[in-house]
C-alpha cells in the first residue's frame, strides 16, 4: 500500500464519520430493539475463527483534502498527450451540457428502473437511446446497451447461435480490432462454440473466404467490421445475401459516430449490429466506462440479450415506459436466459443520448467532415515526409488510416511521445495507424508531421 503513513496515527475512535450517521445513543436504541446487548451479537452466527480481528492493511481514513492530494499525486504521474490514435477509443468533442446532465443525481443515484412509476426519467432516455441507435444502425430494435464494444461482439456471437438453431460455428473477419477478436475468442472457449478467424485480403475482409466456409452448413454467422482495424471503410455488398442463402446471419461491428455518414449495417442487409459507442463523445478515460451497443432486426428481438424498454400506458392512459420482454432475462429464466447480463451501461447511454440530441444530423456530419478532412491532410503530409509507404493502396478511410512505416515502429512512437504526441500505433509488419478527430487542429497536425520529418531514416 503506497499511500500508507508509516507511523500509525491513531484517530479518536469516537470521531464520527461523515457517511455513517450513528451516534452512541442511536446504536444503543437499535441494539435494544434487536434484543442484543452489543454489536458483537450481530455476528454471533459467524464461527469465531472467521471474525477478522487484525488491522486492515489500508491507509488511515483521509479527509477530502487528503484524498484530493492523493489523486493529484497519481495524476501527476500521468502524461497528457495529443491523441493521434484510435483503435477503438476516440478523442471526440462533447458539448458541455452532456456531462452536466449526466452528473445529475436523479440519474446518477438511481437503480435499474424496476419501479417504473418512479423511474420514468431513466426509462424515457433509454427509449430515446434505443430509437437513436436503431436509426444509426438501420435496425428495428436496440437493447438498453452493453458493457463495451468487444463484449457486445461476444453477445452478438452467442445471439447468432441462438437464432440459428443447430449451428455451432461463428466466423470473425481478421480485420476486426484485435481486442474484439480476443474477447470473442475467450467467450467461445468457455461457452463452447467453434470460432474461425478469416484472414484479411489486402486490408479488408475476405468475403470470398467467408462465403466459402458456408458450404459445410455449420456456420451460424459472421462478424465483420464496418470500419476495420486499418481504418478502411469496408465494402460489404453481397455478403448479407450470401449469408442468408445459407441460413446464416451477418453482424456488422460499427463505429456509430461514422454511421451518421456511412452505409448502415441495416443498409448492408445485416441482421445484427454491435460495436463501441465511446466515439459518441464519451471521454477516453483510460478505457472506461464506455458503451457497447447491440441492435437487430425485428424477428430476432426475443433473442436480443440485455435490458429493453418499451412504451405503454398507465392506468390513467398516460404514455409511460417499462422494462419489457423480461422473460428473456436471467432473473426469470436463470440458466436458460439469453445472456447473464443483468445491467446496462445506463448512465453512458444517457451520455450518448444527450450528445446525439445536441449534435443532431448536422453536427454528426460536421464531426465526420472535420475528422475526414484532418485525417486525409495528415495522410498526405505523412507520405510527403518520405518516412512512409501506402499500406493498402487507395482504400477509402474516414478518420483513421494505416501506413507502412520505414522507421522502426517502436522508435517512431518513442519520438512522438517525446514531443507530446500519441500516435503511430503498431499493428505488426511495420504497419502503423494514425487517427484524427475534430479535436485536432491543423497546427497540431503540422507539428506532428514536423517531428516525424526530423527523424532520420
Amino acid at each position, binding site marked *: *500500500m503506497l499511500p500508507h503513513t508509516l507511523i500509525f496515527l491513531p484517530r479518536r475512535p469516537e470521531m464520527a464519520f461523515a457517511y455513517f*450517521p*450513528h451516534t452512541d445513543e442511536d446504536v444503543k436504541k437499535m441494539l435494544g*430493539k*434487536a434484543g442484543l446487548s452489543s454489536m458483537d451479537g450481530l455476528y454471533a452466527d459467524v464461527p469465531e475463527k*472467521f471474525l477478522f480481528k487484525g488491522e*486492515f492493511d489500508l491507509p488511515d481514513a483521509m479527509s477530502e483534502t487528503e484524498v*484530493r492530494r492523493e489523486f493529484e499525486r*497519481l*495524476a501527476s504521474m500521468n*502524461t*497528457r498527450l495529443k491523441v493521434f*490514435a484510435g483503435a477503438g*477509443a476516440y478523442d471526440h468533442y462533447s*458539448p458541455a451540457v452532456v456531462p452536466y446532465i449526466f452528473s445529475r443525481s436523479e440519474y*446518477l*443515484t438511481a*437503480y435499474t*428502473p424496476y*419501479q417504473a*412509476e*418512479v423511474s*420514468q426519467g431513466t426509462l424515457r*432516455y433509454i427509449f430515446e437511446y434505443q*430509437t437513436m441507435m*436503431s436509426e444509426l444502425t438501420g435496425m428495428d430494435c436496440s437493447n438498453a446497451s452493453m458493457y*463495451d464494444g468487444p*463484449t457486445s461482439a461476444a453477445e452478438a456471437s452467442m445471439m447468432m447461435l441462438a437464432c440459428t438453431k443447430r449451428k455451432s460455428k461463428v466466423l470473425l473477419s481478421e480485420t476486426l480490432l484485435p481486442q474484439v477478436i*480476443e*474477447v470473442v475468442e*475467450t467467450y467461445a*472457449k468457455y*461457452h463452447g462454440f467453434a470460432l474461425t478467424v478469416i484472414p484479411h485480403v489486402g486490408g479488408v475482409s475476405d468475403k470470398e473466404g467467408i462465403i466459402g466456409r458456408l458450404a459445410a452448413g455449420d456456420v451460424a454467422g459472421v462478424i465483420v467490421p464496418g470500419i476495420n482495424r486499418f481504418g478502411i471503410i469496408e465494402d460489404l455488398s453481397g455478403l448479407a445475401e450470401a449469408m442468408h442463402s445459407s441460413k446464416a446471419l451477418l453482424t456488422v461491428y460499427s463505429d456509430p459516430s461514422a454511421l*451518421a455518414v456511412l*452505409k448502415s449495417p441495416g443498409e448492408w442487409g445485416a441482421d445484427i449490429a454491435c460495436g463501441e459507442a465511446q466515439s459518441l463523445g464519451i471521454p*477516453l478515460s483510460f*478505457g472506461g466506462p464506455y458503451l457497447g451497443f447491440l441492435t437487430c432486426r425485428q424477428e430476432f428481438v426475443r433473442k436480443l440479450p440485455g435490458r*429493453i424498454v*418499451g*412504451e*405503454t400506458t*398507465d392506468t390513467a392512459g*398516460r404514455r409511460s415506459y417499462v422494462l*419489457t420482454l*423480461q422473460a428473456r432475462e436471467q432473473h426469470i429464466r436463470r440458466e*436458460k436466459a439469453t445472456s*447473464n*447480463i443483468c445491467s446496462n451501461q*445506463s*448512465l453512458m447511454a444517457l451520455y450518448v443520448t*444527450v450528445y446525439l*440530441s445536441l449534435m*443532431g*444530423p448536422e*453536427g454528426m456530419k460536421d464531426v465526420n*467532415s*472535420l475528422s475526414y*478532412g484532418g485525417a486525409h491532410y495528415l495522410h498526405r503530409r505523412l507520405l510527403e515526409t518520405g518516412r512512409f509507404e501506402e499500406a493498402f493502396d487507395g482504400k477509402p478511410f474516414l478518420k483513421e488510416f494505416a501506413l507502412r512505416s520505414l522507421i522502426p515502429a517502436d522508435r517512431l512512437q518513442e519520438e512522438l511521445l517525446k514531443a507530446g504526441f*500519441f500516435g503511430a*500505433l503498431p499493428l505488426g509488419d511495420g504497419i502503423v495507424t494514425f487517427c484524427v478527430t475534430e479535436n485536432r487542429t491543423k497546427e497540431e497536425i503540422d507539428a506532428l508531421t514536423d517531428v516525424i520529418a526530423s527523424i532520420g531514416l
Partner: protein
Amino acid sequence: MKYYDKLIFELSKTGRRGYTLPACKWEDGLDGIPENLKRNHAPELPEVSEPDTVRHYVNLSNMNFGVDTGFYPLGSCTMKYNPRINEEMASHPGFSGLHPLQPAETVRGAMELYRILSDALCAVTGMSAFTLNPFAGAHGELTGLMIMRQYHFSKGDTKRTKIIVPDSAHGTNPASAAVCGLEVVQVKSTANGTVDVNDLKPLLDDTVAGIMMTNPNTLGLFESEISEIADLVHAAGGLLYYDGANMNALLGKVRPGDMGFDIMHLNLHKTFSTPHGGGGPGAGPVGVAGFLREYLPYPSVGADVSGGYTWAKGSHTAGRISGFHGNFGVLIKAYAYILMLGRQNVKNAGPYAVLAANYIKESLKDCYKLPIGSVCKHEFVFDGLADAPEGVTTLDVAKRLLDYGFHAPTIYFPLLFHQSIMIEPTETESVETLDAFIEAMRKIAGEAAENPEILKSAPHNTPVSRPDETQAAVHPILKYRRQS
C-alpha cells in the same frame, strides 16, 4: 416529482442546433468517400437547441427517484450513499484524457491506482490478487467461472462441467454458469434457509468444477456451515466461488478469503459506494487465492524492476474479457471511497448495515410475516403481510410505499417464498430515516386491513400510475415513430 410527457424527438425542428464546432478548414469534404459506402440519407436524429435540451433532460430527471432523493431499501442492491468526492475525482482531467493504449510510462499514475485499489480489495477480502477488468457483477461471475474452468483445464481435467448453485441464489449465478458452458446443479436449502449439507454431499464428484455461494445468502443469513462446505468441495477437487453481491454485510468484519473461498467478485457499485447510474456502469473486480494468480484475465498491471508498471499477462490466463482494462472511472470512485473509509471506518461499515437490517426486521415482524427469525445480516426477507386480506399482494405494498416517498424493497425474490419482500437499509441511513420507513410500513399494513383498495390502486402520488406491462410485452414498441 411531476409528470412530463415529451420525448426529445418531439422538440425537434429542422434547422435548430445544439452544438458548436470550429468552421471546417479542410479542402476535403466527405465527397472523397465512394457513393456506395455512404448512407442513403442522414439519420433522423433530433434537431434541438441547447436550452430546450437542458430543460428536457432536467424535466425527465424529475420523474426519477435516486438515493439522493430518499431511502432506497432495495434488497440485494446495497443502495448506500454515493459520496460526491468520488465524482469529483473521477472527472479529474489527469485521468479522463488518457487513451487506454498509451504506453505504460505515460500512464504510471493510472496504473498505480489500479494496483493500489487491487491491493486494498485484497486487504478487505483476504484474497491474494484482483483483476479490475470486469464491468459488472454478472461479468465478474462469468470471469470468475472462466478462471475456475481454466484451472481445471490446465490440469488436464476436462470432465468438470458441472457447477453447484444453491436454490436461493440470484438468477445471475445459473445464467453466468450457462454462458460459461457449465451445467447447473441445484443444491437445496434447509428449513432454516441455509445450504443443506446433506443434500450437497451426494452431488460432489469428479465432474463438479465448483460451487457458487453467496454468503450471507439472499435471505440475509450467514452460511454457518461454510467450513464444512469448503472442506467437502475442496476434497472433491472443486473450487469455491464467492458471489460478492452481499459483501456489504461482512465489510470490515469477515473476509471471504479466510472462509476458504478461492475466487470471488465484488460489486464496487454496491459495497464501495460507486453510484448505480440507473443500471450501470458498475464494476465487478474478481479476486483469487494465490494459486490462481496466473489465471486472471489480461491485461493486468505488473511491476517492473525499476519500480514502474507494465501490462502483464498471466501464464495460465483465462483470456481477455474486456476491450481495455475495465470501467476505470468507476475504479477511481471506489478508490476515493476506500481512502475516506480508511482502516478505521471500514470496521463499522458491515456492522452498521447489519444493525440497521435487524432494527427494521424487529420493528416490523408483528405486521409482516417473518419466515426465518434469527439474527439477519445486512438484509432480510418478509413473506408478505402477516395478515393479508384477500387479493392484497406484496406488489401492492411495494407500490403503496412509493406514495410515502420511499423506494420499494426488492419483491418476489428470493423465490423460496411467494410474497417475498427483501429489505436492505445499508449503513448510511440514520435511525430517524429507518423510523420513518417503519412507520410507513406499519401504516400500509393498517391500510391493507381497513382500505385495501388504496393499496391495490397505488401508487397515487407518482408521475405515472402502474403501467400496463402486458400491453408492453404483447405488442412491443421499442422506439419512437413520428406521427404521420
